[in-house]
């Protein structure tokens, strides 16, 4: 009834090509942004902000990165965590080399390093396809993770092998380091994520995005349309790794706050991000957010939420139940809608449009 596009006519192509052509959608986005910028800091406590919201943002960004590669370009990667790691270590090294430069700039620059490494490991993608390509990215995953432990230069020769996050100020407010408040860190992450999401959205809706999707859907035909496969694929690797790198840097600087970084960027994380992308919806930016919420935040919420609701479970049992529940939910969601939560969302909107009729 209320969700209708009737009466909204588009008289220009520009309006028709907008990312959210329907007014209600635009209002929805505005509300969400308002909630994110004002609502969360107002109502959320520290615990919520730092263990649910910040991880959610970090993972969303990483998932967007992987979605560009896997969802839009059709290249499966199991090395996302390693590329995130490159971002994190690059940012760490950059802070030691350029202590004076603004930390946010450094975080963004570190993405470039990750992009370069991503391109390197993307090279085999011209010849290797599908799950076979996964091995190339697995090589990246394990090699880089090894390097994070074995190359002491990367962690400034610290005896423990851990990296520390120094305190850095932004307009006089600490944004990294232990004294940065969760809200500040959350804001920084939020701004980065919003801006980068906007860029990603622009890219995937334009020529580049179309080339990527063409390569994904039918690479031979794409080549015959004049798209250079290698360029398109490598660019996808670059952009994707850039996002992963920034997410990795954010992860260490705004969330973990240092520590044992090598182990953080392990294969499990790579898998998890892939799953976020799949569950959220391949080839859908909004799906990346859904996926991140589902895979990263749901277990946390279950774990701390169930006892709060009075479900009397011991730590280990709760963990087991969480595992089973998440596993079962993954399967249920896939069965209900294999194209991910994003598609479910769309169908929901479609139903809303035809409501109260079934179709």
């Amino acid at each position, binding site marked *: 009834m209320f969700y209708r596009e009737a009466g909204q006519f588009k008289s220009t192509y520009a309006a028709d090509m907008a990312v959210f052509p329907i007014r209600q959608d635009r209002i929805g986005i505005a509300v969400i942004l308002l909630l994110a910028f004002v609502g969360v800091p107002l109502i959320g406590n520290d615990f919520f902000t730092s263990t649910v919201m910040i991880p959610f943002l970090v993972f969303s960004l990483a998932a967007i990165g992987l979605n560009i590669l896997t969802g839009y370009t059709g290249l499966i990667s199991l090395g996302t965590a390693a590329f995130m790691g490159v971002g994190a270590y690059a940012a760490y090294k950059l802070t030691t080399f350029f202590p004076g430069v603004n930390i946010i700039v450094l975080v963004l620059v570190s993405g470039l390093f990750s992009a370069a490494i991503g391109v390197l490991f993307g090279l085999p993608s011209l010849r290797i396809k599908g799950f076979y390509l996964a091995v190339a990215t697995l090589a990246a995953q394990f090699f880089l993770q090894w390097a994070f432990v074995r190359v002491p230069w990367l962690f400034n020769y610290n005896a423990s092998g851990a990296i520390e996050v120094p305190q850095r100020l932004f307009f006089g407010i600490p944004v990294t380091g232990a004294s940065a408040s969760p809200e500040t860190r959350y804001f920084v992450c939020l701004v980065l994520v919003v801006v980068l999401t906007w860029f990603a959205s622009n890219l995937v809706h334009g020529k580049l995005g179309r080339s990527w999707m063409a390569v994904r859907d039918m690479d031979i035909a794409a080549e015959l349309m004049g798209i250079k496969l290698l360029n398109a694929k490598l660019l996808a690797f670059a952009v994707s790794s850039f996002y992963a790198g920034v997410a990795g840097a954010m992860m260490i600087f705004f969330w973990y706050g240092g520590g044992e970084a090598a182990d953080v960027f392990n294969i499990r994380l790579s898998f998890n991000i892939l799953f976020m992308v799949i569950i959220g919806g391949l080839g859908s930016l909004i799906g990346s957010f859904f996926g991140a919420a589902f895979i990263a935040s749901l277990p946390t919420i279950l774990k701390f939420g169930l006892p709060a609701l009075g479900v009397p479970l011991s730590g280990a049992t709760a963990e087991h139940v969480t595992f089973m529940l998440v596993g079962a939910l993954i399967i249920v969601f896939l069965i209900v809608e294999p194209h991910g939560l994003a598609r479910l969302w769309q*169908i929901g909107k*479609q139903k809303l449009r*035809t409501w109260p009729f079934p*179709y």
Partner: protein
Amino acid sequence: MSIATLDAPTSTTPASDNILSLNNIEVIYDHVILVLKGVSLTVPRKGIVAILGANGAGKTTTLKAISNLLKAERGEVTKGSIVFEGERVDKMSPNELVRRGCIQVMEGRHCFGHLSIEENLLTGAFTRRDGNAAIKRDLEKIYELFPRLKQRRSSQAGYTSGGEQQMCAVGRAMMSKPKMILLDEPSMGLAPQIVEEIFEIVRRLNAEDGVSFLVAEQNTNMALRYATYGYIMETGRIVMDGAASMLRENEDVKEFYLGVAEGDKKSFREVKSYKRRKRWLS
């Protein structure tokens, strides 16, 4: 909407004479896309029935609804019933249906790309239980019908040409020794000679082995030549049906499907681009 019925539907004949009957079925894809809006049709035992209609009319969907392959595409039959040999089959699994003798040749080939042509044909005999010798014999028969397949028997199907794959798909279905074959666009991509041959095979199987056919076909000319009865579909509905001979004489059918309006076949160079109005849809 008015439906022009040229012939009393076969409902007067007893059901037992129909090998297949669809009763007012409705199909929805993805929970929201309504594609078939109440389709009823019957195939008499040992009959050849054609479904004609424009692109997107729902021919393929109808066939898939019968063979129960819809589920694999997230479609479902929400209303109506499908009866094959006197039994409701709308909840039956596809392999059960094949075992009972109803097999579909899918539109767009769908060979097993990594299997050789011969292996492809042999998978068609998966449900058969009458021994290797009989299967071998039938295999030879197929090769006789399609000599081209014999030449390419050990090639991986994925590498063969479009037409070869089409032959392979048809041959594969015949390998299951069915009572009824659902043929979806058998002529697509085949050389005229082979098209003719395929329909000859249909006729032969029908006459000699008593196999029934339900054929969805764009080549109306051909279809109406070989079928005994025809249904015409438009956007998910049956809009006309009748004996093939009568359909062939119908003015609308002549103009839109046979291209022989005003008695003469016109050249493709002469056709004008204009949006046609379907006369039976008011």
